[in-house]
């Protein structure tokens, strides 16, 4: 057994002796379990692989001439992840081709047998140079080429030819190709699903972005490692350290991910997120789940790399444009701001960083201008600002001008560009420290695809777009600045453990004060945050046909101003949450709630605090007497019913309701001085009122006034004021028989029509018709109430009017829910709140017309 191993194979003495019997991957697994991680693990893996391969090569290739094995790509960089591909190049001299098959067999087959994915290119130096012209990815893999074993001179030759290639103008082309591929990769891996479950290699800010930086840095500037990026000034120390940490972190995560997936997988699926969080000892605490802590760290690393590579490539773009003779043009604008034109792209910047230190508010002025013109801030300025953000923080927070400019940014942002740049530079979290803890925070659910900080920025942008689209709503907003700030801060208390709407409402008060808002405006800001979920919640989970619900909501918002703001905020929030959070379905429900509430707010008495207090008082009084079942019983009593009776009366009604099973109709007449009142409680049904009117007419009683209510459980409570058509006293009326007949009529066992006809014939003519009799008028109103059709009848009063009209309604299958019957002088004024037999409003124009005609006829035939 050949036990000689070449130098540089990273031996660990006797342990290594044992390990060399296993495949490199198995050996790695053993080391991993012993606690080796991150970069060390990768380097160890490379070393083990190196030994394995070198051994196989030496077994067949006695001397060094004519062939060499070269490690490319990740393997070349000694970044061999547990399930990475092994990218190998078998470089040969044309004269040595006869030995190739032997070497390939000896090297490649064992690797394949071990289950590895092997890049197995076999080329001469000439072929390599030829291929790099057409295959960009091959060119890139050569940049990381590392000699493994064999003919070193051959490898040197390759390097020399590669250097030649680049020195003849191919550098710029390489950089441009790199940038183009990067763009394409970002769009391919930029979908929403990748925000939730990032691909830590290919997603924006992933390891590929870092590699792209390193390759371009090597080719363009000769920087051999990240270290040299710092020493050459391409990166500041702060940037370098951040980048190094991010790289190390993602290495650890990628290792774990490969092992957790047990294959080459770079996608952080949910189940792996949880598994790795646990493995890294990240547990639930103070409002955040362990997995959320983990992902916060991942998003932070991704963001760090993303920002650094964005800045780097913008810089690269400028450099090569300059060498191509199309350098950027800098134009000074007003005091301190500069405009940079590069090709067809424009950027805004600060003249120099001292300006920002002398006059900190200039930074905010810059962003305000950028937002107004929707152009990005130049990378050079962004980088400078990022360096001094912490230093200037206090001065920004205490500067009146900064708040002014910030509100301009909020007002003008129609894209996330400027606010995202403010976030990335550290300006946003410095100016609004309340947002600090939301940075990179991703909540663990599939619904919210953005990290909270980005979601808030998106909400603000969506809001601005909405305000343009929905002008009739946005014009009804008094102070848009408050609405915009609420959009940016509505989730500020997320990740602090439960009840983020309530908590957030308190937190934003302090912010409102700093902005110099009035007390009313601060209240409004707090209100919006507190209720930002409420409207959508009601719309999708509550019965919008319950008038009581709408009334309660109207009382919560109190004004059209607040309703408009909450409506816009709700839509913006949903649109900014994710692709499934907003759709036509939700839009229809939310709009219904909005319109019904707006409608109600037009009737000021509904939100009159006195009325509200009166209702509350009534409910309390009734509840006091009811005891345990109070809640259930109160829920069926409509508001206007409660406002029409005393607590005692209500209790009497309830007592009647209890007697219904045995009695069917409870009828209680009472003499109250001059007027007689009759209480009728029974189960509501179509035609009930007409039957009641009919029976009373039969007994010669005029209904002067009536309050008709239907409780939500379908019980009718009718309070009638009656008086005799002829001179009779209360005791002259056979009330018992009336009640009995009422019972019969209600159960369809009394023929009212023929009896009434007989009765009125026997009475005879009522008296001479007044000369100027007003014609009856019928109004069918579908616009005043969202819940009922309102039918108003104005007609000369007469004994059979009510029966006639209500009978007609019954004939149409129309149900009466509320009614106010009365008269003004000679004229009867009857208002009915109705719905058709399906429970819907009557708004078919043909039916409306038919109904109107029928009711007019019914009113007229009473004019004898």
């Amino acid at each position, binding site marked *: 057994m050949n036990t000689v191993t070449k130098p540089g194979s990273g031996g660990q003495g006797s342990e290594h002796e044992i390990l060399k019997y296993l495949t490199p991957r198995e050996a790695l697994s053993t080391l991993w379990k012993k606690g080796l991680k991150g970069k060390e693990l990768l380097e160890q893996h490379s070393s083990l692989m190196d030994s394995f391969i070198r051994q196989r090569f030496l077994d067949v290739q006695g001397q060094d001439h004519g062939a060499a094995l070269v490690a490319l790509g990740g393997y070349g960089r000694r970044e061999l992840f547990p399930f990475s591909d092994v990218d190998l190049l078998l470089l040969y001299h044309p004269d040595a081709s006869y030995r190739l098959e032997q070497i390939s067999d000896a090297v490649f087959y064992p690797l394949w047998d071990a289950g590895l994915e092997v890049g197995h290119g076999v080329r001469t130096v000439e072929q390599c140079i030829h291929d790099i012209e057409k295959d960009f990815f091959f060119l890139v893999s050569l940049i990381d080429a590392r000699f493994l074993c064999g003919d070193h001179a051959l490898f040197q030759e390759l390097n020399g030819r590669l250097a030649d290639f680049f020195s003849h103008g191919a550098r710029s082309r390489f950089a441009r190709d790199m940038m183009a591929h990067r763009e394409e990769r970002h769009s391919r891996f930029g979908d929403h699903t990748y925000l939730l479950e990032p691909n830590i290699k290919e997603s924006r800010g992933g390891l590929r972005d870092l590699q792209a930086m390193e390759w371009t840095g090597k080719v363009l500037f000769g920087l051999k490692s990240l270290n040299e990026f710092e020493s050459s000034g391409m990166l500041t120390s702060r940037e370098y350290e951040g980048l190094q940490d991010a790289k190390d972190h993602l290495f650890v995560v990628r290792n774990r991910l490969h092992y957790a997936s047990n294959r080459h997988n770079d996608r952080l699926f949910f189940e792996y997120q949880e598994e790795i969080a646990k493995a890294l000892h990240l547990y639930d605490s103070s409002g955040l789940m362990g997995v959320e802590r983990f992902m916060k760290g991942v998003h932070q690393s991704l963001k760090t790399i993303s920002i650094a590579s964005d800045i780097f490539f913008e810089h690269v773009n400028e450099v090569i444009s300059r060498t191509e003779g199309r350098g950027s043009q800098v134009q000074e604008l007003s005091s301190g701001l500069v405009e940079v034109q590069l090709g067809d792209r424009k950027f805004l910047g600060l003249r120099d960083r001292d300006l920002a230190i002398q006059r900190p508010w200039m930074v905010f002025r810059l962003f305000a201008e950028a937002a107004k013109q929707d152009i990005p801030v130049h990378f050079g300025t962004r980088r400078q600002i990022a360096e001094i953000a912490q230093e200037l923080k206090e001065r920004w927070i205490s500067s009146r001008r900064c708040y002014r400019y910030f509100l301009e940014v909020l007002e003008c942002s129609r894209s996330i560009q400027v606010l995202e740049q403010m976030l990335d530079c550290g300006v946003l979290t410095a100016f609004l420290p309340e947002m600090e803890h939301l940075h990179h925070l991703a909540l663990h659910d599939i619904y919210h695809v953005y990290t909270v900080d980005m979601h808030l920025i998106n909400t603000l942008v969506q809001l601005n777009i909405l305000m343009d689209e929905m002008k009739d709503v946005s014009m009804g907003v008094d102070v848009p600045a408050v609405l915009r700030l609420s959009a940016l801060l509505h989730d500020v208390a997320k990740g602090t453990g439960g009840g983020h709407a309530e908590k957030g409402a308190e937190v934003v008060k302090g912010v409102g004060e700093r902005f110099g808002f009035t007390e009313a405006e601060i209240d409004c800001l707090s209100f919006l945050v507190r209720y930002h979920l409420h409207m959508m919640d009601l719309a999708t*989970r509550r019965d919008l046909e319950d008038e009581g619900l709408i009334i309660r909501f109207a009382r919560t918002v109190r004004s059209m101003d607040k309703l408009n703001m909450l409506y816009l905020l709700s839509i913006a929030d949903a649109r900014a949450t994710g692709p499934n959070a907003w759709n036509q*379905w939700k839009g*229809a*429900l939310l709009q219904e709630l909005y*319109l*019904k509430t707006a409608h109600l707010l037009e009737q000021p008495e509904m939100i009159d605090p006195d009325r509200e207090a009166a209702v509350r008082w009534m409910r309390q009084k009734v509840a006091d007497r009811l005891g345990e079942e109070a809640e259930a019983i109160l829920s069926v009593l409509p508001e206007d019913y409660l406002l029409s009776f005393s607590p005692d009366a209500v209790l009497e009604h309830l007592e009647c309701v209890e007697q219904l099973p045995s009695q069917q109709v409870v009828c209680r007449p009472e003499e109250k001085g001059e007027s007689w009142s009759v209480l009728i409680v029974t189960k509501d049904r179509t035609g009930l009122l007409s039957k009641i009117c009919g029976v009373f007419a039969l007994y010669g009683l005029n209904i002067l006034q009536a309050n008709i209510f239907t409780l939500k459980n379908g019980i009718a409570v009718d309070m009638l004021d009656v008086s005799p058509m002829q001179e009779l006293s209360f005791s002259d009326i056979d009330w018992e028989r009336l009640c009995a007949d009422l019972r019969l009529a209600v159960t369809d066992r009394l023929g009212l029509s023929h009896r009434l006809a007989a009765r009125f014939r026997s009475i005879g003519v009522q008296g001479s018709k007044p000369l100027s009799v007003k014609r009856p008028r019928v109004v069918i109103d579908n616009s005043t109430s969202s819940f009922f059709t309102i039918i108003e009848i104005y007609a000369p009063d007469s004994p059979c009017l009510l029966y006639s009209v209500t009978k007609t309604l019954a004939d149409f299958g129309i149900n009466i829910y509320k009614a106010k019957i009365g008269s003004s002088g000679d004229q009867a004024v009857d208002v009915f709140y109705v719905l058709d037999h399906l429970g819907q409003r009557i708004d078919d124009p043909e039916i409306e017309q038919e109904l109107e005609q029928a009711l007019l006829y019914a009113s007229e035939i009473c004019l004898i």
Partner: protein
Amino acid sequence: MKKIEAVIKPFKLDDVKEALSDIGVTGMTVSEVKGHGRQKGHKEIYRGAEYVVDFIPKVKLEIIVAAEMVEQVVDTICKAANTGKIGDGKIFVLPVDDVIRVRTGERGKEAI
């Protein structure tokens, strides 16, 4: 085995889920759907302008149950989703050929 499809009013979803949970049915698929029927879409006249929505938002539940449970499940849904007003919805019962659990490969009643 049978598939029960129920189209109900959106705000009744929680009530129905709870009622089903009480009788031991916890697995179901829920989707937001648009309904068309005798119930008219919402129409509102506000400030002289007419706002019409020509569909009615509904929620559809899909549940697979053993045949002997069908009556009980249908009954439960009916009671929980009922408001007595138009638009309460409909329930459909369909036959099911087979049910398979992806994770384990179990088939038939065990996979429900």
